[in-house]
């Protein structure tokens, strides 16, 4: 018999849905300031999401993809990563991005149809959002290669949804990361839905984590609505990758308690009762209950925190709305480092013909 590794997949959880601690926290996490900071990030992400949806409804930004219900994943990723690790996100990772120097106004710029939103002023190396599903996983292994090549002990951290795990790029990337011993952490946001297609129609695999085992990558499942379990497991995985130089995969189990994007209507395919059950498990309520029982978190403090977060977001919205527009013709200038003669000619033609666009 050939045995690659135990085919049982560990499931990790620290907080149950009532916010009760199931086992003692590691010393590094037993820190009131940190626990509140995590809660603040969850709230900040939730409120930003709501604000962004409103901005879409009023035509101030375009289609927007929410993270609602999945905030714990991004919160934990951002907290666990080192500044000089590299993050390769997909489109439900705002909670991570805002911890890594990406501003709310840049995120709004992106969804507002302005490329400058991906030219992060304070984050030089992370990738911007990747739209073609699963393609970012291939970029992550290249980033991981570069980090290893440069003798850094850093990790390329990449995320994708459950739907992405059906794509060839997912399998190719896992296989290559393992075969070439690359320091990459794959984190799957398993929110049970790829737009309207549920997980059981996406795969017959018992878990997504099992898909990694076939590639030779160790993998676990974590309660993705439990920010503490996510943080503990991501931190552990990152440390293991830094030591071994080899990849790891975390399947975060969560639920998309929102539409796919603002262009979607999940009530067409999502069972309302199932959704109500899922909402009971969402990460904010759970963490708040935990804080209330363990750290004397009060409604008063909660209100103040919400107020504070909303103010931070409103200020960002103001800054977003006050950005000067791009110059007409800017969209020619970043195709190549230097504009080739033929493209320069097209740009000049465009500028001369600008009156036709007004």
């Amino acid at each position, binding site marked *: 018999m050939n045995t690659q590794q135990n085919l049982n997949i560990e499931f990790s959880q620290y907080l149950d849905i009532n916010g009760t601690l199931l086992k003692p926290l590691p010393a590094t996490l037993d820190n009131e300031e940190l626990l509140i900071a995590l809660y603040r990030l969850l709230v900040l992400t939730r409120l930003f999401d709501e604000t962004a949806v409103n901005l879409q409804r009023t035509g101030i930004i375009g289609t927007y993809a929410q993270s609602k219900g999945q905030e714990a994943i991004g919160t934990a990723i951002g907290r666990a990563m080192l500044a000089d690790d590299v993050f390769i996100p997909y489109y439900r990772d705002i909670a991570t991005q805002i911890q890594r120097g990406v501003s709310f106004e840049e995120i709004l710029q992106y969804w507002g149809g302005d*490329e400058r939103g*991906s030219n992060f002023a304070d984050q030089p190396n992370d990738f911007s959002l990747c739209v*073609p599903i699963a393609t970012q996983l*291939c970029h992550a*292994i290249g980033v991981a290669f570069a980090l290893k090549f440069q003798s850094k002990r850093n990790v390329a951290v990449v995320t994708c949804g459950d739907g992405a795990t059906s794509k060839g790029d997912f399998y190719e990337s896992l296989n290559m990361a393992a*075969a070439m011993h690359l320091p990459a952490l794959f984190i799957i946001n398993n929110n049970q839905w790829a737009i309207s297609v549920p997980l059981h129609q996406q795969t017959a695999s018992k878990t997504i984590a099992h898909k990694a085992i076939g590639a030779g990558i160790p993998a676990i499942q974590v309660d993705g609505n439990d920010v503490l379990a996510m943080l503990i497991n991501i931190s552990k995985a990152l440390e293991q990758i830094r030591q071994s130089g080899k990849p790891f995969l975390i399947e975060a189990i969560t639920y998309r308690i929102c539409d796919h994007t603002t262009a979607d209507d999940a009530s067409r395919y999502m069972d309302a009762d199932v959704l109500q059950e899922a909402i009971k498990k969402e990460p904010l309520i759970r963490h708040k209950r935990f804080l209330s029982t363990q750290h004397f978190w009060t409604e008063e403090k909660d209100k103040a925190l919400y107020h504070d977060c909303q103010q931070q977001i409103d200020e960002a919205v103001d800054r977003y709305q006050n950005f000067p527009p791009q110059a007409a013709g800017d969209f020619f200038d970043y195709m190549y*480092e230097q504009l080739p*003669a*033929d493209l320069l000619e097209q740009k000049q033609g465009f500028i001369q013909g600008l009156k036709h666009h007004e």
Partner: protein
Amino acid sequence: MNDWTMIEAINHALANQMRANENIVIFGEDVGVNGGVFRATDGLQTEFGERRVFDTPLAESAIIGMSIGMASQGLIAIAEIQFMGFIYSAIDQILSHAARLRNRTRGRLTCPIVIRAPFGGGIHAPEHHSESTEAMFAHIPGLRVVIPSSPARAYGLLIAAIQDPDPVIFLEPKRIYRDGKQAIDDNGQALPLDSCFVLREGVDITLVSWGAMMKETLEAAKQLAQKGIDAEVIDLATIKPLDIDSIIASVNKTGRCIIVHEAARTCGVGAEIAAQLAEKSITSLLAPIQRVTGYDTVMPMFKNEHFYMPSTQRIIYSAIKTMEYR
């Protein structure tokens, strides 16, 4: 000076740049110990080690996607796709990301990669090993597409491609990999990536081609000269950006133009050249522009590939008809 075939010139250009820049890595299928199925990377792993020259798993999309990730963090990635017919698995990465990364991030992340792929027919290879789909890539904003047609131009253009800060599709005409040698100084000199090369001056008719088809085109010019027709021959070399000014200058002189390419006719690069000539220089034309190309068929398997590929005689016939046009 060294006497090198095109494949040797490619090999030495790679080595030259690897010595000059420690951030260059070369990888793909069979490029390591084996030195590539055509030996383009022969000996490179021995000289530069497995850290910089290595075999990857057989996965074209991941090879190109990985190149993008590497390039975003300061490396220069030179990826080999074993045959152009296998590049389609990676097309999403090339079109959706390599070509767009600079623009998407407004220059914050860039993609200095070279994708090398042998292309074209005429070596009696199996199905899918003889493709010429350069026009697909030339259509994509953000890419450069380069095709050499001699050892010296392969050397200089490949060095330019490696030094270019944007993604370059470098297509190597494998039929002429070993078709004669040229004296080349291994001096690391780059050739321009936006200029065609006038290989033969003439006043009667302009013949434009690229890659392996230069061979038939030059031979046709030679035979036309014996018939008293003085053809100017242009090697396009850089398919994108396309140096239309040099072609216009030539056509302004000759008044006639034939474009020769191996790829299928419809929406081929020849169509773009003809369109631009029509837009910018139609009054200089004394006869309709002709195209001598492959057909809008699948490239036949090798028993019939000679029917598909433009021959010297087809070029000559087309040139004579053009000269006779009144």
